[in-house]
């Protein structure tokens, strides 16, 4: 069992390494993609700086704390799009019957598929997240916590994408559901949770769980609380379990295709 897990991790990292090498073929494109993503992320901060020059706090948070929302959101986005990039096009992979190559390999199909490509710009998001942490005030403790939270968050975001994409096994074009949930996650992740009330808040901690991957980690970076920390771990495991369960349940309904396919 342990050897199998070790081998799966080895193959996953090898796959990510090769996918990364593919993206690095054009050095200039690679570097500009990373740098422009950092610039793109940074441009959004300007509006908050303007806002905080007019108001002392927003939703109970100061400027540096709001920056943390951006840092965590960028980190989560970076992790999910770098390590599990194909989770965001899983619906197409299922609809077009492209799982065959992974199904004949003695490895976990889901992990093999989602880690078969990387997004270069995600490296920019990842770096930007750490730059924000540096501005916020980096310590060993919050560096480790931040890294842990973006890994958990990245996994949860990918798992939500897997859950919604797996609906394609039952009805085609579930990518619309996936896109909507992902867009909502990104849009709400950069606002302090103090400004949301009532039903919106409930939605943000359940259907679109930005609260679990973003708001709680920010609160924990400001003031650590063991119960909330365990809640983050619990939520990560819950969404992971659901993703695997739904994907493998759907896989039994998979219908392949005879499309001419090239692994470019």
């Amino acid at each position, binding site marked *: 069992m342990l050897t199998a897990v070790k081998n799966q991790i*080895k193959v996953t990292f090898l796959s990510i390494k090769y996918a990364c090498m593919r993206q690095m073929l054009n050095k200039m494109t690679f570097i500009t993609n990373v740098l422009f993503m950092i610039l793109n992320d940074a441009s959004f901060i300007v509006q908050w700086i303007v806002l905080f020059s007019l108001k002392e706090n927003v939703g109970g948070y100061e400027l540096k704390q709001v920056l943390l929302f951006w840092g965590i959101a960028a980190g989560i986005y970076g992790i999910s799009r770098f390590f599990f990039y194909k989770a965001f096009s899983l619906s197409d992979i299922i609809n077009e019957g492209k799982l*065959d190559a992974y199904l004949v390999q*003695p490895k976990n199909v889901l992990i093999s598929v989602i880690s078969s490509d990387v997004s270069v710009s995600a490296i920019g998001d990842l770096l930007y997240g750490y730059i924000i942490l540096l501005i916020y005030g980096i310590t060993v403790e919050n560096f480790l916590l931040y890294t842990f939270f973006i890994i958990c968050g990245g996994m949860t975001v990918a798992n939500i994408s897997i859950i919604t994409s797996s609906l394609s096994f039952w009805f085609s074009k579930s990518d619309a559901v996936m896109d909507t949930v992902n867009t909502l996650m990104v849009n709400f992740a950069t606002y302090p949770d103090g400004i949301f009330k009532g039903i919106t808040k409930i939605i943000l901690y359940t259907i679109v769980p930005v609260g679990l991957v973003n708001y709680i980690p920010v609160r924990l970076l400001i003031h650590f609380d063991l119960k909330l920390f365990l809640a983050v771990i619990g939520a990560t495991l819950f969404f992971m379990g659901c993703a695997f369960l739904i994907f493998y349940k759907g896989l039994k309904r998979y219908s*392949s295709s005879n499309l001419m*396919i090239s692994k470019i």
Partner: protein
Amino acid sequence: MKVIEVKNLSKTFKVKVKEKGLKGSLKAIVKPKYEEIKAVNGVDFDVEEGEVIAFIGPNGAGKSTTIKMMTGILYPDSGEISVLGLDPKKERKKLAYEIGTVFGQKEQLWMHLTPFDNFKFFAAIYDIPEKTAEEKIAELTELFGLEKFINTPVRNLSLGQRIRCEIVASLIHEPKILFLDEPTIGLDPVVKENIRTLIKKMNKELKTTIFLTSHDISDIEKLCKRVIIINNGEVVLNDTMTNLKYHYLNKKIIEAKLEKSLKLDDVQGIQVLKNSNGNLKLEIDTSVTNTSKILELLGLDNIKDINISNIPLETIISDIYRKEQSK
């Protein structure tokens, strides 16, 4: 020893039926209609260890669906499959260590990597230790003649070189059975012949059982001792190549150059394909008449030159497809 046993295998696909135009699209949203297509319908067959077997049929016959169920890609609706004693539905991962697959139409290799890096990746997938993997790669590189391009990125290789690499990638883990789905598709005759020689070599030297599908009859004729023909999801023929030729070769072609022209239009069992200036071409139905009678009819002294040949295997197989299609 049987390595593959398939019993009463069936698979149905549900396909959405849509009427034409925008009205049809709207109707399909409100009240969708589905049609059930039986891709595979009660298929039975066995494969012995070390066999090179051809699994053929026209497009849409159910070949690929059957192979995909045998390799664990698709779940069957009913029936039993045992590949090397394993159930592909329940033991997909375990089975994957024992079989290899090459889909001529689908790329398994990373295009930007060299064949060597690709083979290392496949070795990692099959949990093969580094040293063993390198030894195996060296052995297969020599067997398949990959030395010249082992370090060239796959995207820069010719189709023939790429297919050879695809086959090697599927052999890294020494599979007991290799499923080859149209391995020679799109290749020129010289490369096709090269691939066939390698498949033969692989079967002989590595003792790999080969399960081959191809639309190229030469692949089947030159490689396989037994053929299974599938049509409309059902096995319509499961026999040795020798029996196939014996039972279905009831027609012969005679081409002759004669001193004096003859009129043969009214002779039973003969179809005159060409008859001009002493050049004669006949198709003989040997179930009605026989070759010696025709030779007598032509007159041995009258024959300047003669060639007697069988109907090509391709024609026989096309006839079987057509007969089954018209049923």
